[in-house]
């Protein structure tokens, strides 16, 4: 039911993270998260240049059911927000791992995603929760 991309890393709070370069990551929400939230109607990405500690809120997404904070797993600064979201937040529902990405973070240190879940680990976590 849930599509999982094998190339990404995952958080327990249902973000996915991709390493783009030595010091940049892209963050989005998982297919499970978009399905649980339902139709997204609004996404607010924190402004470019905003400094973030690991675990800080970096975006807020809102559906007809709920508003949900999005956290960055690594410290850094907001490098870019997905410009499509302001007009078409539903892209997150349609393509959560692709065009529905949320933001890019320029990390304070070289990207290290070893503390996050891989696809199998995230899948296991979902299976245990339900």
């Amino acid at each position: 039911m849930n599509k999982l991309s094998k190339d990404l890393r995952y958080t327990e709070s249902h973000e996915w993270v991709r390493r783009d370069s030595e010091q940049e990551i892209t963050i989005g929400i998982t297919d499970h998260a978009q399905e649980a939230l339902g139709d997204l109607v609004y996404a607010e990405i924190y402004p470019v240049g905003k400094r973030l500690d690991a675990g800080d809120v970096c975006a807020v997404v809102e559906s007809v059911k709920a508003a949900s904070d999005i956290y960055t797993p690594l410290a850094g600064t907001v490098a870019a927000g997905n410009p499509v979201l302001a007009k078409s937040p539903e892209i997150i529902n349609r393509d959560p791992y692709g065009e529905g990405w949320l933001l890019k973070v320029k990390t304070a240190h070289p990207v290290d995603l070893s503390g996050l879940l891989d696809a199998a680990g995230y899948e296991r976590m979902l299976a245990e929760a339900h």
Partner: protein
Amino acid sequence: MSTLIFGHSRPGRRAPGLAPECEEAIDDLPNDLLRKHPPALPEVSELEVVRHYTRLSQQNFSIDTHFYPLGSCTMKYNPRAANHLAMLEGFLGAHPLAPERGRQGFLACVFELQEMLQAVTGMSRVVLNPMAGAQGEFAGMAMIRRYHEMRKDAGRNEVLVPDAAHGTNPASAVMSGFRVREIPTDREGDVNMEALRAAVGPQTAGIMLTNPSTLGVFERRILDIAKIVHEAGGLLYYDGANLNAILGRVRPGDMQFDVLHLNLHKTFSTPHGGGGPGAAALGVGPRLEPFLPVPFVARSEAGGLVWVEEGDRPETIGRLSAFMGNGGVLLRAYVYARLLGRQGMRRVSEYATLNANYLARELEAAGFELAYPRRRASHECIVTLKREAREWGVSAMDFAKRLLDYGVHAPTTYFPLLVPECLLIEPTETESPETLDAFVLTMTKIREEVQNDPERVRNAPWTTPVRRLDDVRAARELDLAWHPQGGLDKA
């Protein structure tokens, strides 16, 4: 959808019988403040006005016409006696600035309500000045903030909120300038104690709890939670949203809470939502008393009742509105509390929990899955329709919409967020066993429809004045105002 009142408008049509006579001409307003054109009011006859609004009222789902098991909202019957007495001429005609000596009757009602709520919550003082539950929460958090500031302990900037809390709790904490840290719930619906122990520290300003929680279960380790948070230097905030489950039996003060708000429109049966303004009581333990918002009623040394104002309370967080809360609503809560008395309040929670548990067991027996089958329900219970969603592709929302066709207001859907495809069902104490049985039968019938004719359920409701609304589009293209053609001023 029915026509707006403007759609009935015809030039020159009037309802003169309803317009008050204007005794004196108002001719001293500055010219530049006068509007250039008459406002675009509908021009209709008296009969059209009566028909239009009567029709609208008939289209309404209300507790007076339908079973309304909207979880977390306590949609109990509002006794007519409370309404009747609050509308006595002496109350209606009073002015909020009238001298105290001429308002002793009203002040006595407010004072006695304060005292009754103190007794039933176990707090050392209760005031009634918040204009709504959310404002009560805001004032409560502002007092916690002031408490830490006065102790020169301003580093406490974090509020703990369990994920089973009401959505207003994190919002109120943020509005009051705190950061929110979420505490997870364990499998049986209690606060995860390990996570709580790991989260408290010198940054902890307090914790906001609803007990019973929004999962419809009583937080069993509340005294341990209180100890952990108090030892870390934080305070405990009680959200009174679910007080109906424990009224007259368990007191928040005895659970070691430092501050609380009660939604009078829930537990104390004042009109809800569109039926009237909300109102809240705010209660505190001794530590927060100096910071209470004003005004509230106290007995003066001479024996009369007086408003306690800013001048009497140098450490108060201030006023929440120009006057003293929603007086008319407080009167209804007062009459309700007096009608019940001490024994009656215990019966409220007895029947509220009996009804919820009866409904939970009957629904379970009818094959529905409870979210917490091993727990006794509080005043509400949660059914999860994840199996129905998986096997037949119908959602909790589809069930909710179909219930409308059967004359039942839908329970709360998709809340709490922790439970997939959930219905949060709160029957309240004022429903009869026959109504509860009819609800279970209706749910069973809808499940049969799901198996035989799922489109019937997926496309419900069929019988309401408005069919399924496009809630996604409504949120994405937010438009809250109606604009007459050509703008608000008629050219």
